[in-house]
């Protein structure tokens, strides 16, 4: 095995809202802005669609970091969806912290359709942060190991 393959690469799941962040990711691509290939994007109709279980499940199945991107507060396509997301995720992340789980592995970021550059920089920054934390052990499920 080459040295390159042995290097630890974090697996990151990004939930992106269809109306803002997913388009932002598209723009980052069109503008040829680089962001890590370890970021796997899952498109959701609204950031509010993301059930806390989605996030925990991603971790359970081996994700090292989960980031949730949505429209800026006040800009939600469905008017108020992201306000609910904000409250829910605040509570969920605080609970992860309470259980002694590194809360840096989770993040919420508001990225609009025009912010391709922000999308790329957010992903670069988050991937760096997660890589520095190393493989996710506290959130992994032994039964889900390949």
């Amino acid at each position, binding site marked *: 095995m080459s040295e390159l393959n042995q290097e630890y690469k974090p697996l990151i799941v990004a939930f992106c809202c269809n109306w803002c962040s997913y388009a932002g990711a598209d723009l980052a691509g069109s503008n040829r802005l680089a962001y890590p290939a370890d970021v796997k994007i899952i498109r959701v109709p609204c950031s509010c669609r993301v059930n806390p279980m989605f996030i925990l499940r991603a971790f359970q199945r081996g994700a090292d970091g989960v980031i949730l991107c949505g429209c800026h507060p006040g800009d939600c396509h469905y008017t108020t969806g992201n306000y*609910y997301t904000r409250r829910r995720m605040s509570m969920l992340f605080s*609970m992860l912290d309470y259980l002694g789980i590194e809360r840096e592995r989770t993040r919420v970021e508001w990225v609009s359709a025009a912010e391709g550059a922000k999308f790329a920089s957010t992903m670069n920054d988050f991937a760096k942060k997660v890589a520095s934390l190393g493989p996710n052990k506290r959130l992994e499920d032994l039964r889900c190991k390949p």
Partner: protein
Amino acid sequence: MQTVNTQTLIERASALLQDGTVSAVLGWKRGEFDYDMTPAVFTTAEELAAGFVYNDFCGANLSKYLLKKTREIQGKILVFLKPCDTYSFNQLLTEHRIHRENAYVIGVPCSGMADIHSIRKITGEGIARVELTEGGLLVHTLYDDAPVAVSYEDAMADRCKTCKSKKHVAYDELLGEEGDVLDSHRFDEVAKLEAMTPDERFAFWQGELSRCIRCNACRDVCPACTCEKCVFDNPDSGVENKAPGGDFEEKMFHIIRAFHVAGRCTDCGECSRVCPQDIPLHLLNRKFISDINKTYGEYQAGETADQRPPLVNFTQNDPEPSDVVKGGHDHA
């Protein structure tokens, strides 16, 4: 020792059955053991006289049973509620899960309930008989010749030691006097955990939650868990295994369980009471309550029957998730 006796309750219930105000009574009867008082439905005065009990082991919160019983039974149901149970009752009304006109609530005073987990810590296993006397409990075990005396204070459930309220927030009539909301220091234990390092917290919860056998008793008893179909009944839920793996699966189950009632949990503590593994589950729910109080303003679920729960509400200036760590005090 409770301040009202079984006889007073039976007399009042029989009278209401006889004059036709109610068609059934929701109360407690003796289960298999002295310390196992289980919820029961009574429809005649004879049944009440034969089986109804109210003592220090009647910790069960009867409000959830209204959900099913008000659909099965025609007419009003008489239900005896302790102060903390009335909060759950109000919460069920808020969520339109029960109708006020189907229930006749008699508020019963409660001086704190005894808990078998607390008693076992003092006497050990093999509890055969428990006598409730004026001065305290006399616990007969298989392995001791003489009964062990336990005071009511020591026998009390953890949730009752930090009782939040002796006030009935909903009732049709009250037995005894109206109590007050107490200054309970119930968040002290949460604060103690928050003050630990992440590694210590992880070790603590690993130790507690890895005992979970997914019996779902915490869900079944919870008056806030009223979904007809539950995510945990899905065999592909990802948390369905019964043998503890000692990894994230048990934690995921408990995070989701607590999250589903976040903002609606009245902190009645039933989850911890029924846990066969004695896991302090109420500490997870309390964390959410404490976070909500600190971040979105003081909120007591079930205080009145017309509140909007904080997690189905928002303001435009809520703090960002990155700013809410340990209840919004520290910044990431």
